[in-house]
């Protein structure tokens, strides 16, 4: 609608950059994140034995919490990336509209399948669990759920293609979007802006993830409809973890655009794409596509070399984040005269959360550690660390940035951000402690000796939800004004 309006008024579209849609994306993100957090809290409450939850309901919540968070992380990440990328390359916001519609339709289908159809195979829907539920759900629920997943995938595919088109058109190829002409060609052309580099990486890896995801989802749907079409379970696992790993990883590469764009504006120090920076992003692009076997270290049927690759490359993949992006962010704020406010503190937390979240991941990707830590709470410990304290602060910072009409002048305190960090740290620490205590992940009922970690986590989760609610409320309260002036 924004664009039709723009067309009618004769060409403010270049200024518009799909802002109305970005605002709607963030509103959806905020509301869904809170809802999913409440689902998470319910699960922790049940594990703490403070409420009683039917295991069937627990696993339904688990499924929705997982897929919902993955989807909404991508939606929020895209909002950030789109907003900043559209200043560098001309994007058509119709793709945003199509994606949001497909997303919402998909969400309704998934919720229907899970809460009415009882479909609960976790968000990873590892074959053949969707088809073999032990009588808990019918095949139709699986078909409905996976069709919803497929629709959401189609929406994100269209978004990626549109971003890819714009990058190719304006930069002359995705290779140039990654700065390869500077990195490899020794070209003296201006390197692409960091946001363009991030956008290019997201386009490449997400598109490939979606193609793989669509393939395995369609295969699983066909298997539900025609059980004689059997899938090799190990192949299915590889496809699902390739898709899942790349897709969820891409969300933080979307969100990091907020750091690249806002920190320089706040401090007045430019973030330029140096050759090291470009090299780091090219490395990340490659690594994120090939390190997924670290999810399969306990599948001894996998070829040995994939295990070696999974461990060594997982470690190598931490270089770009730890030594380049993180350091760049720290350098920009170091002795910059910055006055910390909500936005800048959230961005700093985001960089810390991302970098720190990498650490337990690298530890767990070590085969000998994985041998006794895989599928314990250590794993959710790692990804909650970098999603809750890495990606979400980026999204919250961006929400508040928009609510402040994109004015980067520091204002107000940052107490809520600090509290969010503390509750968040407490929350993820309890997951990591659970991993240390060998608590298996995805258990509806916990043993008595594990309750202490569960109960502290529950309290921390409640705190996180309250503070996230504050950030979302700040944004939602501003929406009428944002839409009016959008």
């Amino acid at each position, binding site marked *: 609608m924004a664009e039709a309006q723009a067309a009618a008024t004769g060409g403010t579209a270049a200024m518009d950059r799909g802002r109305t849609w970005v605002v709607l994306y963030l509103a959806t993100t905020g509301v869904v994140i809170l809802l999913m957090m409440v689902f998470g809290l319910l699960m922790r409450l049940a594990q703490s034995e403070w409420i009683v939850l039917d*295991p069937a309901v627990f*696993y339904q919540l*688990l499924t929705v919490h997982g897929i919902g968070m993955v989807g909404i992380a991508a939606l929020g990440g895209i909002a950030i990336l789109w907003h900043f990328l559209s200043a560098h390359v001309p994007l058509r916001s119709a793709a945003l509209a199509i994606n949001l519609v497909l997303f919402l339709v998909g969400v309704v289908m998934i919720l229907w399948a899970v809460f009415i159809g009882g479909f*609960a195979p976790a968000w990873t829907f*590892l074959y*053949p*669990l969707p088809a*073999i*539920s*032990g009588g*808990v759900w019918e095949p139709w629920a699986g078909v409905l759920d996976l069709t919803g997943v497929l629709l959401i995938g189609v929406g994100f595919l269209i978004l990626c293609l549109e971003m890819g088109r714009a990058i190719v058109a304006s930069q002359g190829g995705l290779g140039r979007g990654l700065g390869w002409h500077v990195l490899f060609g020794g070209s003296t052309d201006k390197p692409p802006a960091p946001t363009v580099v991030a956008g290019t990486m997201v386009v490449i890896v997400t598109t490939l993830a979606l193609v793989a995801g669509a393939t395995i989802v369609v295969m699983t749907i066909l298997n539900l409809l025609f059980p004689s079409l059997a899938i090799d*379970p*190990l192949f299915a*696992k590889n496809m699902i973890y390739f898709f899942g790993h790349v897709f969820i990883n891409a969300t933080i590469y979307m969100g990091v655009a907020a750091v690249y764009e806002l920190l320089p504006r706040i401090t007045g*120090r430019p973030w330029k794409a140096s050759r*090291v920076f470009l090299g780091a992003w090219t490395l990340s692009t490659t690594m994120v596509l090939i390190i997924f076997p670290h999810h*399969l270290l*306990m*599948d*001894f*049927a996998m070829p*040995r070399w994939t295990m*070696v690759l999974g461990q*060594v490359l997982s470690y190598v993949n*931490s*270089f770009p984040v730890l*030594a380049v992006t993180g*350091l760049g962010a*720290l*350098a920009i*704020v*170091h*002795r*910059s*005269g*910055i*006055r910390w406010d909500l936005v800048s503190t959230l961005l*700093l937390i985001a960089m*810390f959360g991302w*970098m*720190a979240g990498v*650490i*337990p991941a690298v*530890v*767990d990707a*070590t*085969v*000998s550690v994985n*041998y*006794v*830590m895989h599928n314990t709470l*250590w794993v959710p410990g790692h990804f909650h660390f970098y999603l809750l304290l890495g990606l979400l602060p980026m999204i919250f910072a961006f929400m508040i940035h928009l609510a402040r009409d994109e004015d980067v002048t520091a204002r107000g305190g940052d107490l809520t951000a600090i509290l969010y960090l503390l509750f968040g740290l407490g929350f993820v620490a309890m997951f990591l402690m659970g*991993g*240390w205590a*060998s608590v*298996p992940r*995805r258990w*509806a*009922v916990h043993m008595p*000796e594990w309750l202490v970690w569960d109960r502290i986590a529950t309290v921390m989760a409640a705190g996180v939800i309250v503070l996230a609610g504050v950030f979302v409320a700040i944004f939602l309260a501003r929406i009428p004004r944002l839409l009016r002036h959008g």
Partner: protein
Amino acid sequence: MTVQTLSLLVSLAAIVALAAVFLRVRALSHTPVDYPPLLARAYRLGRIALWTMVVVGLPVTVWLLRYMPHTTAAAVADPQVVNVSSTQWFWEFDRESVEASKPVEFHVTSTDVNHGFGLYDPSGRMVAQVQAMPGYINVMTHTFEAAGDYRVLCLEYCGLAHHAMESVITVTAAGGSNG
């Protein structure tokens, strides 16, 4: 020290160190200095960090690869073989008792969906695990250090009663009865 404790301490140390850097940067951020020299220093630090990770970390991770639980059957002479079959939602073993200090070869598979075969020592700490997959037999070799009742828990989400999928393997003292 157990692998779990070591992992926790290493992670904790790294995270605390990282937090210290962030806190220091935040504390010093109020007084502005010129950016270009600072950036040059940051680049130098970045290079040092990167090279440290390459020169120190990379050999470490490669060295850690020497321990792979994917030991093939041929590598162990005369193992005690336990065939493990998993089904929603129970475990089946062809022998329920093995001897400590002697390698045990677990041949793990599933009759329906993916499960995870997790071995817990009597204190409740996980000592080994492997995925149980339909159509595949994953061979895991483990040597129990001490006698006792080892719980088997399911470590891969497998549906409604995933958390109730438990069993026990008894480990007898070395040189005891051979089951």
